[in-house]
């Protein structure tokens, strides 16, 4: 299943947030979205996943999601959004229960996703007992449990320290290599963008428009910390963004 954004525009009251966004999200690819603060990245993600209606344009689903997909458009949030009163497995079974998956069937899915995110030993732990990186792993395994056709990730690693971030990036690459998933990955970290994105969408400052789409052809598994080609791409992205970022920063001060 692919997604296509057709002329998406959005405003809150009088404030124009984004304009004329056209974008293809092909199956099996990770699309990273970068842009200055406040340009509407989170809003765009909410529009794609149907948590909000765009003011103009529409999000088109091209083709059917795989039949075993329980929740085709699935989010991973920056703040993890785990229920603090449920254990790790309870948080995962939460999203299965409502789709009628219980008992042995749920058990099988839970064991599988926990193994894939290396959380098997923490099955009965409460979120308060886990570190930030572990919490985000739980959120990732919860997302995997519903077999999404597209994962919508809003700065999933930005609440984590840089070492944990490296580890989780490796995990994501590992997950993708074993079984390619489709994702829209919003980040303000250009390094994450060049490490994880098959293509990188650069948005302008508010009202957000697509400034450029940068394709990174190197295969995900080969991308390593400090690779010169990636450094070059990252620098190119930063050059694109610098002026926008400076302008956006000033704009916020003027408000």
């Amino acid at each position, binding site marked *: 299943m692919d997604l296509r954004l057709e002329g998406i525009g959005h405003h809150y009251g009088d404030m124009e947030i984004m304009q004329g966004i056209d974008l293809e999200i092909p199956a099996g690819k990770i699309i990273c979205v970068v842009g200055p603060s406040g340009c509407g990245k989170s809003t765009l993600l909410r529009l794609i996943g149907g948590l909000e209606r765009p003011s103009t344009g529409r999000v088109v689903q091209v083709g059917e999601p795989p039949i075993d997909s329980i*929740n085709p458009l699935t989010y991973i949030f920056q703040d993890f959004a785990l229920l603090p009163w449920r254990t790790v497995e309870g948080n995962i079974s939460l999203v299965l229960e*409502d789709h009628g998956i219980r008992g042995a069937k749920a058990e099988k899915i839970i064991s599988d996703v926990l193994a894939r995110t290396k959380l098997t030993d923490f099955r009965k732990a409460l979120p308060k007992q886990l570190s930030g990186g572990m919490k985000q792993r739980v959120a990732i395994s919860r997302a995997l449990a*519903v077999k999404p056709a597209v994962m919508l990730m809003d700065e999933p690693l930005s609440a984590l320290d840089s070492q944990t971030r490296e580890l989780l990036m490796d995990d994501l690459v590992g997950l993708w290599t074993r079984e390619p998933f489709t994702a829209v990955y919003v980040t303000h970290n250009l390094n994450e963008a060049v490490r994880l994105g098959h293509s990188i969408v650069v948005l302008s400052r508010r009202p957000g428009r697509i400034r450029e789409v940068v394709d990174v052809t190197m295969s995900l598994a080969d991308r390593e910390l400090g690779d010169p080609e990636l450094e070059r791409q990252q620098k190119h992205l930063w050059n694109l963004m610098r002026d926008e970022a400076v302008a956006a920063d000033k704009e916020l001060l003027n408000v």
Partner: protein
Amino acid sequence: MSEDAQLATQKTVDFRGGGFAPQSKKWVGFIVFVLLIGLAELGTRTGFITSLTLPKPSDVFATFVDLWQSGLLWKHLIPSVSRLVIGAAIGASVGIGVGVLIGLFSLVRAGLVPLVAAIFPIPKIALLPLFVIWFGIDEPSKYALIAFGTFTPTVVATYGAVDNVDRSLIRMGQSFSLSWFSIVTKIVLPGAMPGILSGLRVSLAIAIILLVAAEMLGAEYGIGAYILEAGSLYDLERLFVGVTILSILGVSVSAVIGLFENRLLDWRT
């Protein structure tokens, strides 16, 4: 700096953190009680406090033992506790239900919040005659009074608690296509539970106050009737026995809620 380091005076940095973190120190409360009672006993024994001002704590205790041995204690306590339980259960459950509805539906909120605000400040005791007319002099009017008094603070605490549930968790629920009912029962209600329970502490204390008020007006047995009778005879020992029983009742109710909090809210950091 590095050269002066040996010569300069050295001193540990003053500690200025700490505090603002409630810790469990149960015995302190107990000591305060014992100290106060000990002081009263000393004062009345030495004659510094006359027996007209305050009865001797040891006499109060003896009266209490009498009451117990005569079997009258249970005769007063059982009707009181059952009134409290039934009245508070009705008031709290209706209050939680209405509070959740106010929290969830804007229409209900717009309609009922002003109404709740209007009936909150009414001293419910003043309405007792009305309840007697409506429900008769027997038990139902007492239940109604206690239920009504418990209802308003529970409603206010509950919808405040529902309002405070983390919206990002609700959005998470929607993003996984959970049903409306699941979002309410699995996310909103557990998330509101801390606020609801701390609201119940207040509501149940109010219920005890109203229990006594209701029993002072037409009840043969009950702690309130016992206190009223002692008061009209100026029998200070028995008055204090009654008051002490009420305090113990209050402490027990609060302890029960504490137990619930420990069981239901162990997920809190």
